[in-house]
């Protein structure tokens, strides 16, 4: 029944895209992110009037549902003209290795993007000598959020390294705070995991983990897993029942002191919770990552066999342009990929992130698809769940290495 529905949906959307002068873009941006996408589409229509943009959105499940529909469409041979995908291995490991995407190197050259997009980012979205997608926005994974009032009340400061974090945790527990760290459902724990790893192994170690130079079974990685286990001992026990927003609420109300979450939390604190940045909520880089920017990005690519290739290339040009990025990102609460963006349009938090973006070492996020392919990421959650229950670093790293081998990491 579900399959039949998906098929029907795919046929319906495919049918409507076949006429001339059209562009079908496929994304999971709806709800809060809808206005940002609408603004982009409006800009596209200003530049290229007469093209009818078909905005095919499949909402829900942080893209899970959209990705499933996309896969049935691609397998069925009716790709959308351009689709949203996390920049990096989520695109490369699924679509580029299967030879379904067009190389965009020439577009990057003709538009001069190589000069304004940081080299670390180009490296993340390249493979086999090609560049495969145009990143639109940048979010930061390694941010630790806190409530300044809570820290003042307990007389602690935000820790700078993970060992320091653990001693702060002990101090807070001694003062009666049950869970100094708050985490939510499975993915937020993986999000925390990647930041413990980057903070413990360093940016270089993290990169080596994904190019195969550093094995998961290496004692340093096993040790980092053990640290992650200790960090999880500081966390709340009802994690899997909480969404990331509910976890953020516990920072606001002072139940917990710290939360490691991506910088979309800034939008939640300012817009939904009406808190002032700096006083109502505070942030710093996740422990041990002060000179690192763990990034994730949404991007669009050009699938082979797209029906409206010329319109799609124009769409990608708009996405990569300064005007396009500065239209989209302030509304979405992210920052521009380009280092030449007009910062006056951005929020207080985004300004600080954009400054770091220019001056930090940039690495990719694991959970959010930048450094690991889907076949790794989606099976890794079960592994972390088991590890959190058993705290068996040796077993978990052995399993992670097997998973990495199977997913072809480091090949």
């Amino acid at each position, binding site marked *: 029944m579900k399959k039949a529905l998906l098929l029907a949906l795919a046929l319906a959307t495919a049918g409507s895209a076949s006429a001339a002068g059209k562009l079908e873009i496929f994304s999971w941006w709806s709800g809060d992110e809808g206005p940002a996408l609408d603004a982009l589409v409006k800009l596209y229509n200003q530049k290229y009037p007469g093209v009818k943009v078909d905005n095919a959105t499949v909402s829900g499940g942080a893209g899970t549902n959209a990705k499933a529909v996309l896969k049935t469409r*691609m397998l069925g041979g009716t790709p959308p003209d351009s689709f949203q995908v996390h920049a990096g291995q989520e695109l490369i490991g699924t679509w580029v290795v299967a030879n*379904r995407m067009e190389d965009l190197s020439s577009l990057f050259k003709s538009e001069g993007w190589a000069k304004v997009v940081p080299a670390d980012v180009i490296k993340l979205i390249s493979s086999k000598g090609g560049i495969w997608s145009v990143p639109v926005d940048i979010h930061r994974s390694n941010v630790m959020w806190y409530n300044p009032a809570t820290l003042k009340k307990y007389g602690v400061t935000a820790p700078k390294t993970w060992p320091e974090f653990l001693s702060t945790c002990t101090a807070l527990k001694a003062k009666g705070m049950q869970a100094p760290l708050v985490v939510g459902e499975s993915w937020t724990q993986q999000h925390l995991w990647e930041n413990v790893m980057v903070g413990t192994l360093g940016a270089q170690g993290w990169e080596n983990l994904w190019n195969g130079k550093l094995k998961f079974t290496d004692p340093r990685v096993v040790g980092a897993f053990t640290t992650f286990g200790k960090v999880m001992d500081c966390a709340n026990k009802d994690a899997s029942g909480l969404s990331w927003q509910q976890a953020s609420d516990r920072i606001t109300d002072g139940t917990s002191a710290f939360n490691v979450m991506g910088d979309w939390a800034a939008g939640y604190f300012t817009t939904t919770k009406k808190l002032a940045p700096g006083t109502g909520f505070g942030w710093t880089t996740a422990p041990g990552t002060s000179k690192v920017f763990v990034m994730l990005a949404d991007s669009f690519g050009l699938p082979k066999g797209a029906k409206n290739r010329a319109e799609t290339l124009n769409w990608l040009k708009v996405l990569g342009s300064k005007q396009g990025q500065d239209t989209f990102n302030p509304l979405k609460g992210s920052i521009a990929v380009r280092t030449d963006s007009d910062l006056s349009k951005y929020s207080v938090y985004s300004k600080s992130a954009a400054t770091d973006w220019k001056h930090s070492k940039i690495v990719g996020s694991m959970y959010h698809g930048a450094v690991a392919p*889907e076949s790794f990421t989606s099976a890794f959650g079960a592994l972390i769940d088991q590890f959190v229950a058993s705290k068996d670093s040796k077993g978990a790293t052995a399993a992670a290495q097997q998973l990495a081998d199977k997913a072809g990491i480091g090949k």
Partner: protein
Amino acid sequence: MKGLSKDRLWAIIVLLPSIILLGIFVYGFIGRTVYVSLTDWGNDPAQAMALHPVIKFVGLDNYKELFSGFLQSRFRQELVSTIFFTVFFILGCLGAGLGLALILDRNPKGEGLWRTIFLFPMSLSFIVTGTIWRWMLQPQGGLNMAPTVLGGQPATFGWMSSTDAIWKFDWNKLPLLTASVVGLVLAWVAFGAFRRAERTRAVVAAICAALLLGWALFVGPNLHLLAAPELHGFNLALIGIIIAAVWQMSGYTMALYLAGLRGIPEELREAAQVDGATQTQMYRSVIFPLLAPISLSAMIILGHISLKIFDLVYAMSGPDNTFTSVPALNMYLTSFRQNQFAMGAAIGTILLILVAFVIVPYLSSQFRTQEGHA
């Protein structure tokens, strides 16, 4: 050509479209799924999403991986969870359904209204039920807060967030356990056949039982599916999901039982009363035996629902809570997130086999009785 009367020809023509559609969209796709499960489609990321993937036949490798692969312990836990879920779900529904039916059978005031109220949850989809119960079973909301209304302390049970499990056993002992249970059942069948003097049947069953039990005693203990012991048990986080499922389906079970109760002729009850049976005796020796076929039907309907369950779990605890996960959810994630279509198809096939265990004996017995009546 007597068989092809005009009437019959019409019947065939009218039926043909549905037979063809069923053939393609049900049986054809089952066949395709089983075939895919025997290939390596998706094990190599480069082939998973290719326009013309190179797919190799690998036999039962995917099944072997699921039951003994180091990385697939999630699937094994889900299989164990499904069994526990099914058992408690069926027991819960039968118990609650029978209880409600017995109450309504005594014709209380406003019986029609109560019946509607009890049946109402069934009109909701599992997604709606799941969402409602998700809210009620929040760690700090709904049910856990209920005691505070009476001035008590809030409860702290982690309905869906618990990571504890009870009744753990080592997966390596599974072949041993299965062989012993099946062997004992066969021994019991043999004993029954022997008592009814069905010699061939008794001998065959006895030999099978002896073989299985002998295997379990002498070979089984040395067989290891996995390198290391792997414990699986009943995850407490499932309790919340079982409650929601029972809430939804017990009304339906009640309706089944109520129909059964109403179908029992009044004369039988009167006869029992004339014979001096007490209420308890009447229920135990007259009414419950007559309800046995209803229980069987209900068990089969509920059993296949619970084996296939997907939406309720998805709505209540999301796709990524491995402590409440079920095979159907894993099948979806394996296929559409990890792009391992062959592995997903293998999980689907295992589910089909499980459901077939429940459905096929029932269908065949139904056919037999219908032919008997015809």
